[in-house]
């Protein structure tokens, strides 16, 4: 039995589980104002634009490079315990990623300065970002335990997880330096609602043959979990005031940070263009409601050990409690409320594009307030019906940078419609085909984009999917 579901529901289902933050369709799709969000140095020709509040940009991603919802939850009559063992426990490794990002833009706008070469943009968005890797040895310890595994070292470094819920305010400047070069920069103010991170863990747990007793259990641990905001949210939830607390922390009542986005567009020739951007070079200082937990030390335990001759005068001691105390002393579990700094997941985009075909409209410079491609001021370059090229995307992750390569083709149909198709290769998928559509109906702009389309015949079976949509009001000004 198959259930047809709308894209949105499927997207939400996916984001509940599993990602990458690559916005390869939106990147360099400069008919859409939100393309400024992935390259503040994009060439823009708007006089002004205003995003429809809460609808100017909604995006979600769900991704795992090795497992899908369908693998576990398909209604196929197979025992979930068998599916979990065969498709997760015995297959996934600590390199396999399980992550989610949801971004909701609630404020978006921009306007051109009196100097037509300068465009200002501003806005705010909420971002939930979570990344984790399959904690293989923890999973084996949880599902199988350590029995009959003498000599096996369980790697405690397998636990790497990081996540945050952040409200971001931003203000950017985009300046056309000359006919060939456009530069952009955007400052960001982060107000973190919640943050958690446990990504620097090391150590191992093992059972070996004991020197005195049958088994010696060895623990070497250097584990740390840092959190911020979670206690406030929990307390507020208990008081039925969770909404107020989230709003308070989102509006500078939480942990604050600063960041910057940089970008450029440069024309190598009339039809060949290179672009690049560096996003979220920033940090957040967590201090108001931070709490860290750590477990650090070494020990080897062979149970309660009593040498009657040595302890003859003090056999009434509580050997069990002494053992517990000794372990807690050498491998202390500690908490503290010191502040800490977290760095934002920095992203890098780069592209090269070649335009070809007939120029769009009147050489790309329209004289009405109703079409894409017209000029808000200044001399604009001609837009062409077709573009193709390649893009590179990289993001900083706990286990090192992740990369994606994209080939794209853009087709402009009149001044009202533009499509961008992409093919992307990354760790999530080798068959990721995406499509974006931008529709300009007078001043109303609507765009929608989704990728990994080949998987949509069974969305639950995909390892990766993303979607993005939005509404804007755009003016190019009248001459």
């Amino acid at each position: 039995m198959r259930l047809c579901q709308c894209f949105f529901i499927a997207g939400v289902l996916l984001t509940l589980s599993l990602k990458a933050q690559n916005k390869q369709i939106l990147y360099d799709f400069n008919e859409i104002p939100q393309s400024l969000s992935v390259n503040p140095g994009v060439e823009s020709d708007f006089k002004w634009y205003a995003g429809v509040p809460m609808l100017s940009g909604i995006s979600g991603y769900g991704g795992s490079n090795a497992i899908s919802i369908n693998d576990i939850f398909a209604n196929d009559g197979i025992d979930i315990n068998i599916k979990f063992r065969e498709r997760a426990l015995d297959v996934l490794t600590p390199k396999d990623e399980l992550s989610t990002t949801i971004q909701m833009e609630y404020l978006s706008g921009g306007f051109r300065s009196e100097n037509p070469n300068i465009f200002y943009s501003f806005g705010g968005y909420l971002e939930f970002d979570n990344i984790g890797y399959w904690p293989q040895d923890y999973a084996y310890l949880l599902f199988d335990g350590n029995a009959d595994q003498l000599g096996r070292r369980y790697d405690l470094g397998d636990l790497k997880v990081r996540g945050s819920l952040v409200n971001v305010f931003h203000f950017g400047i985009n300046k056309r330096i000359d006919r060939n070069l456009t530069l952009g920069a955007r400052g960001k103010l982060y107000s973190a609602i919640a943050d958690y991170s446990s990504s620097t863990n090391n150590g191992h747990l093992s059972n070996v043959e004991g020197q005195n007793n049958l088994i010696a259990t060895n623990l070497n641990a250097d584990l740390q979990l840092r959190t911020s905001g979670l206690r406030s949210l929990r307390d507020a939830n208990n008081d039925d005031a969770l909404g107020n607390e989230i709003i308070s922390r989102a509006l500078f009542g939480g942990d604050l940070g600063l960041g910057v986005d940089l970008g450029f567009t440069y024309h190598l020739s009339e039809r060949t263009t290179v672009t690049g951007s560096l996003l979220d070079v920033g940090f957040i200082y967590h201090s108001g409601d931070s709490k860290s937990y750590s477990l650090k030390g070494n020990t080897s335990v062979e149970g309660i050990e009593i040498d009657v001759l040595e302890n003859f005068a003090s056999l009434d001691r509580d050997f069990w409690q002494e053992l517990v105390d000794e372990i807690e002393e050498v491998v202390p579990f500690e908490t503290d409320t010191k502040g800490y700094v977290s760095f934002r997941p920095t992203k890098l985009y780069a592209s090269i594009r070649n335009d070809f075909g007939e120029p769009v409209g009147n050489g790309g410079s329209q004289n009405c307030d109703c079409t894409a491609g017209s000029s808000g001021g200044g001399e604009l370059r001609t837009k062409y019906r077709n573009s193709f090229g390649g893009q590179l995307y990289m993001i900083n992750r706990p286990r090192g940078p992740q990369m994606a390569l994209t080939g794209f083709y853009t087709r402009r149909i009149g001044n009202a419609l533009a499509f961008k198709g992409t093919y992307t290769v990354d760790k999530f998928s080798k068959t990721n085909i995406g499509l974006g559509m931008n529709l300009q109906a007078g001043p109303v702009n609507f765009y929608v984009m989704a990728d990994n389309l080949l998987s949509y015949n069974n969305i639950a079976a995909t390892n990766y999917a993303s979607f993005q949509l939005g509404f804007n009001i755009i003016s190019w000004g009248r001459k």
Partner: protein
Amino acid sequence: MVRILTLIMVGLLLVTSCSEEQDFDQLDDLTITPDYETSIFYVKAQETLINRVEGLDFFTQDFNFDAFEEPFFAERVLAGVLTYELENTTSKPIEIRLEFLDEAENVLDTEVFSMDAAPTAILQRDVAYGATGKSLDIIKATSEIRLTAINLGDNTSESTLQDPAIVLRSSAQFTLDIR
């Protein structure tokens, strides 16, 4: 215009997707029952000590043992096996008696080990608890372990083996119901 409408339709189709039926209630059937293993206690009594104590019971001691009473363990344990290994290198036959006591010091269970004088083989015994063995309630209620060692020989002979002693080693393997 027709072409534009066609393309819009294609776009709409693309944002409409299908999914095989998913049954998230299966999660209720997921079971997590790992087996954990670790040493329990190790007791060594040297022959020189045994020879110094008059009478049969050369050693009797109650030891606090709260490990089995810990709520995380007691509420989840499904089955278990205690493994004992007894080694006697002394010159006398020895009996070891292990009694499991609850908080009121009632005896819940007793294990008796009889060892001949050295040279003798190491005695190994597995005691199961749960569906195929003794009652798990014994384990869950155990708060203390009473260890009694009885010298069934004399108080003068000395083994020629190196460091003669009676040694009790033990480990436990338990299955827990985590989910």
